[in-house]
């Protein structure tokens, strides 16, 4: 492949340009030798995300099994308040949108827009967490904490595990903002940001599953 062809596929300001490309583009499929870092890092992180999804699926399976094990306590239909959850969902989905804006800003090397979009992402994530903590505290206050029944144990573990992921994501987000501020748009920082954005979007996907399986189905059964 000639250099001009590579330039066509990989314009320098493209979102895909995440590191110094080797002279010959290699995808790692065997013919061209080891793939460049920009591909390897994202690929490895995808595999991590898949493993994370497997972990969530164990919690989902447990929730499905223990769903009816209320031990005489309150059931899903009696407990869940869709209003609160809808605002939570809106916050998280919006935060994915601002995270996407940040990706574009990073690709264009816009410092201020990057920081603003990331700040918005973080605030929306915080709002989500606050609402979740509020919901959990309300449940515990009315005697429907995780110790009440196996159903509530599995509910708190599944939703709480997602919440812990969001918390970790916020910590990462803050670190990321500091790194952009201190190091600029260096290729390694941009690769790291790619991983962060993948992580954040994945949390969204998992939340959609939680929203559907736990809340929507729970309220209507």
């Amino acid at each position, binding site marked *: 492949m000639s250099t001009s062809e590579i330039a066509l596929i990989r314009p320098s300001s493209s979102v895909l340009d995440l590191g110094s490309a080797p002279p010959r583009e290699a995808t790692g499929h065997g013919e061209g030798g080891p793939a460049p870092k920009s591909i390897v890092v994202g690929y490895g992180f995808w595999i991590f995300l898949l493993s994370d999804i497997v972990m969530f699926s164990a919690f989902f399976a447990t929730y499905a099994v223990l769903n009816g094990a209320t031990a005489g306590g309150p059931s899903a239909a009696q407990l869940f308040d869709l209003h609160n959850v809808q605002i939570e969902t809106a916050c998280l989905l919006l935060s994915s949108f601002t995270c996407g804006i940040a990706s574009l800003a990073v690709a264009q090397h816009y410092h201020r827009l990057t920081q603003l979009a990331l700040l918005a992402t973080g605030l929306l994530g915080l709002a989500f967490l606050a609402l979740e903590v509020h919901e959990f505290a309300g449940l515990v206050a009315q005697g429907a904490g*995780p110790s009440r029944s196996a159903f509530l144990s599995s509910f708190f573990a599944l939703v709480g595990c997602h919440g812990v992921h969001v918390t970790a994501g916020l910590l990462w987000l803050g670190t990321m903002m500091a790194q952009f501020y201190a190091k600029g748009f260096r290729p390694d920082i941009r690769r790291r940001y790619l991983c962060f954005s993948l992580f954040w979007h994945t949390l969204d996907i998992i939340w959609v599953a939680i929203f559907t399986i736990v809340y929507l189905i729970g309220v209507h059964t």
Partner: protein
Amino acid sequence: MLGKLTWQAIPFDQPIPLYSAAAVGLMVMAVLVWVVVKGYVPYLWREWITSVDHKRIGVMYCVLALLMLLRGFIDALMMRSQQAVAFHAAGYLAPEHYNQIFSAHGTIMIFFVAMPFMIGLINYVMPLQLGVRDVAFPTLNSVGFWLTAAGALLVNISLVVGEFSRAGWLPYPPLSELQYSPGVGIDYYLWALQISGVGTLISGINLVTTILKTRAPGMRYGRMPIFCWTALAANLLIVAAFPILTATLAMLLLDRYLDFHFFTNEAGGNPMMFVNLIWAWGHPEVYILILPAFGAFSEVVSTFSGKPLFGYRSMVVATMTICVLSFMVWLHHFFTMGAGADVNGFFGIMSMVIAVPTGVKVFNWLFTMYRGRVRFSAAMHWAVGFMVTFVIGGMTGVLVAVPPADFVLHNSLFLVAHFHNMVIGGVLFGAFAAYEYWFPKAFGFKLDERLGKAAFWCWFVGFYVAFIPLYAVGLLGMTRRLQHYDQPQWHPWLLVAEAGALIIFCGIALQAVQLFVSIRSRRRRVEVTGDAWDGRTLEWATSSPPPLFNFAVLPNVKGTEPYWGMKRKAIEAMQLSPEPTYEPIEVPRNTPTGFVTAFFAFFLGFALIWHIWWLAGLALIGAYATFVVFAWRDVAENVISADEVAHIDRSNRAARALALSEIHA
């Protein structure tokens, strides 16, 4: 201030753990003092502890596995001798101590012997076979190793501080719930496994990415050595199965720490769900261990038969079939749950189906040897011993895969004999074959063959003497984990089994002597060309030990046995291929990130076990700070100049040219 930790945690009233721990502690102290006095600390820190070189990390994994093998084997000897003497008697081990020993034995042998040995081998060999310079994420590799080591340390600390789990190597609830196991034993187990499990997951992600994305030019999937294929299958299983273990253990932790009710008897908890979840991880885990061993045997059999592996493609298909099927058999570990005839029937048939690809593999090895010029080296001894032993274990496995038979044999010593037949005869023999085979690659000299074969025969004979009686006594109705018994017909078999364990002990002693003697006489055993066994795959194309960058120039792969092709060409042409143009090589810089992270992870685990909350908080902050410091680095790589690369490569080329001229002379 120190949570539940008081002086009562030290078992002053139990002489056996106290004295043995004191002896081990003194030995560790002596080694540390010796290291400090000799001034080896800076060397160890610079070259090993902070190393991100996959070869160094691979060696450290194997060293950890060998050390833990000693610990696990001492546990085994204690159990065998307890059962040998505890006929109509109490024996010398109190029940609560005996229960800790069998739990520790299983935990250590699976998680801290078999796992690190296999991951260590993959780490060392696989990048060399793929013809590349490192794994995809060198620093994560170091983090993964040190987290595994931190988990191993926690398990061993439990010998002196507190106690270990008494609930078996898989802590089935409700026994493992707080109500029935209020001590710290289960917590030691859980936190040690959570920490080392994260390490395993990290290395699984890393190794999968390495195989799928970083291979030498021309190394298509259809050309990858079988060991790399089995490594790929095993690491895919790690990525897919270990998160289930993490989730399951997390649920048990929530039950124990925060009064959740996943697996309790009351409030709707479901103990059988733990059993299902843990085996959804546990059965793939069996294949995570055995598949790399299959790969190692394939390389050994092919090299020492002087032939390409018979049926390469069928071997690949068999490996990947096992990889998928391993997720469809978990219920055969508990047919007695009572899931009904249809469910049990399905899992029984699936368990028999998985024997088919395994059988394909055995025939492939046999046909590789057929009409080959077989050299019976020590490594080949292990391979042939494996084939015989493993087939026996496979057949008893098919027996227990029949649900009605399993109702009789469940939890009997027949089952114990079966899985030791697979794990010793398969995984451990594979590890030892690989150890003999790749040792000269890692250290530049061969191990003593005569002592190696003597060790093999002790292990081989010892295995049969120790475990065939357990099959028999299991058929006589003896269940596992008995601290004492009063059945006269069991006693003679258990005495024979004790003798078998002692023969295996001789094998281990001979291996220690072999290592010691070989190191002492290493100058005589030195192997200069880098091709110790007339090998066929790329790891033999570089010097022994390989330089930091593995290959001066990435090899260009043209077939399934690239090194064999290069070698034939050189021998025919009576000269090496022309000297390549050397270029500077970037190598990742060493970093203490892995070590420091594991340091904090160890204290996090210890603090959580003993409810020392402030320490847990500090350790978490420490681990996070370590990552931030690492993320802030500005220089990630060092450059080795073209001159230095040329200098290193030329000396190996000279040795090979000399060997070539000797062939023709």
